[in-house]
């Protein structure tokens, strides 16, 4: 009789590699079958998820293009610098020889911005930057300059989109779930109807709502007109830079609210009925029951719902691609839309990858916040 350790030492290499140290030798079929059965899925995940993910980081430090005769070169942080550079700059009004302000038709006159941002040796840090926005501060003009004006706009839009849609969609979904969380006749019919848009493609929904939002014959204008007895002035919802992004938010919430309603419902089911009964005996009203029984029981669901919506919202693409292509006046540019514009349409994979990395850093931060909020306090 030889010991297990000796038997293991005498076993073939593959057994020693694949079999757990503390497993008996007769389980060697487990070890090889285990690897073989997991392998196809692992290879696919490695080639199409892990490697592209790692490549995003590597490629973002190069000038790689999709198809190029020249090999890619390392460019360090240049892609990120261009995408993320933001500077404020103060323009002072022009003065004449005596030092008095020069007026041009009643208003102050300022030097041209490009005098500072184009090859001006005195301002090397401003070279190549462009105006993002500006405002008057006293006699001076404060200008925000950005290395990539369109990307900065896309980043801000996407963050606004996510920040608005998470509480909006999550809150509406909770209201719907509360409304449905009671054993009434036909309640399943309503649940099925509220959920239906979730199975409809976002491409279809976006095209459909393009018609609903139309400025001339749009259905939304018609309905608002009927409700307000004709006093509502038609709006070109997607053609107006102030309404385009909010319109997109409303539509996205309409499409996905049923999804999160179902998750809230699942969370509501986990709250024991006895807690409500006890609260009722203590004289709690409907609102108090919600405040002291329902809401504390939904805490983890709440974090999950908000995080899932936020992460999905950061991936905003289809709506932009189908409805506005980033317009009007870049009011609906989004991070992923820009990544596709540059990585695919302009074949600048490196810049697309840099944008992907920035997106991942944001999503990762959000996921870590979720970890922190749902951590076990004990």
């Amino acid at each position: 009789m030889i010991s297990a350790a000796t038997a293991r030492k005498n076993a073939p290499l593959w057994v020693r590699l694949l079999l757990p140290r503390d497993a008996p030798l007769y389980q060697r079929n487990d070890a090889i079958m285990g690897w073989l059965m997991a392998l196809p899925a692992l290879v696919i995940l490695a080639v199409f998820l892990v490697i592209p993910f790692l490549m995003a980081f590597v490629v973002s430090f190069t000038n790689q293009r999709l198809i190029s005769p020249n090999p890619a070169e390392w460019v360090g942080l240049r892609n990120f610098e261009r995408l993320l550079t933001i500077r404020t700059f103060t323009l002072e009004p022009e003065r004449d020889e005596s030092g008095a302000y020069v007026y041009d038709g009643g208003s102050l006159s300022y030097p041209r911005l490009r005098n500072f941002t184009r090859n001006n040796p005195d301002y090397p840090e401003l070279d190549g930057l462009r105006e993002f926005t500006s405002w008057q501060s006293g006699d001076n003009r404060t200008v925000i300059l950005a290395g990539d004006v369109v990307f900065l706009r896309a980043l801000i839009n996407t963050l606004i989109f996510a920040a608005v849609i998470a509480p909006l969609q999550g809150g509406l979904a909770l209201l719907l779930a509360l409304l449905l969380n009671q054993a009434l006749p036909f309640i399943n019919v309503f649940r099925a109807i509220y959920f239906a848009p979730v199975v409809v493609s976002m491409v279809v929904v976006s095209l459909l709502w393009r018609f609903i939002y139309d400025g001339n014959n749009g259905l939304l204008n018609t309905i608002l007109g009927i409700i307000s007895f004709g006093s509502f002035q038609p709006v070109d919802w997607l053609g107006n830079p102030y309404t385009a992004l909010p319109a997109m938010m409303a539509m996205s919430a309409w499409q996905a609210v049923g999804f999160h309603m179902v998750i809230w419902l699942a969370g509501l089911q986990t709250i024991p009925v006895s807690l409500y009964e006890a609260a009722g005996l203590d004289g709690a009203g409907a609102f108090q029951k919600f405040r002291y029984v329902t809401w504390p029981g939904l805490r983890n669901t709440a974090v999950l719902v908000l995080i899932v919506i936020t992460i999905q919202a950061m991936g905003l693409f289809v709506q932009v691609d189908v409805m506005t292509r980033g317009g009007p006046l870049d009011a609906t540019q989004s991070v992923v839309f820009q990544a596709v514009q540059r990585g695919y349409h302009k074949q600048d994979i490196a810049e697309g990858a840099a944008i992907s990395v920035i997106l991942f850093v944001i999503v990762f931060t959000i996921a870590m916040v979720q970890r922190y909020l749902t951590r076990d306090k004990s």
Partner: protein
Amino acid sequence: MTAMSYETRERLILSLRYALLILIAAIFIFPILFMVMSSLKPDLQLLRDSASLRAFLPVGDISLNNYADAFERVPILRFAFNSAFTTAVSVGASILLNSMAAFSFAFLQWRGKAVVLSLIIATFIVPFEVVAIPMLLIVNNLPWIGPQGIEIGWLNSYHVQIIPFIADSLGIFLFYQYFRDLPDELVEAARIDGASIWQIYTRIIMPIAGPILATVAILKFLVMWNAYLWPLMTIRSEELRPIMVGLQYFFQLNIAWGEIMAYLSMVTIPVLIFYLALQRAFIESIATSGIKG
């Protein structure tokens, strides 16, 4: 308060509740109803009707002409076949690959299992949008054995639409969770009876994996049938284009709204019918996938 007035009050609250439920249902139904009704109307009438509630009614000059015209303008059947083909293959393959991997994680002992499993769970937070661009570079350089021997580059093919999606960490995790909760005796008893590992997988475990199989299949079906970003970037030729990308034909040319509505109805109604038939399974799938956190 008398018993009667209490009852009246309850009844009033209940009717208000139903009124609210119906009003909200209208908000979810109207756009879809509008889509279907508009698909039956000529463009001029469609535009005129949308200025009133006639938009939701099948009135006026009703016909299937838009459907016929849409068929004439784009090869819808070709697109539908492409989508059905890539979806069916992906759903089938993803059930096989994901369940095999999950079976291995749940029941077999091998070295490195714990590390690999936690890596898979870690990939949950990588959205597809993050890897899409570098993936383009990868598929552009992958080899494939074609009719002329080994070719480099997967762009513009069926396999580029299928293979990247036949395994996914959520699918593996859902199967794994389900297998883990099965009683150990099931596998142990089969082992004692001398069943091979492959037999345990095909004869014992998969036959009772129905519910989770439906969940994984439904989630994959929705992702593949609605695929847009990836085929948009990888497919150039019309013969390989899936149905959602085919919609682009309509918003590049002069917009013919009646035909668009017909096309939208055609790609949506089958999914809606499928959904309504399997409503409970669909909703439970989503609830299961949502609680993965």
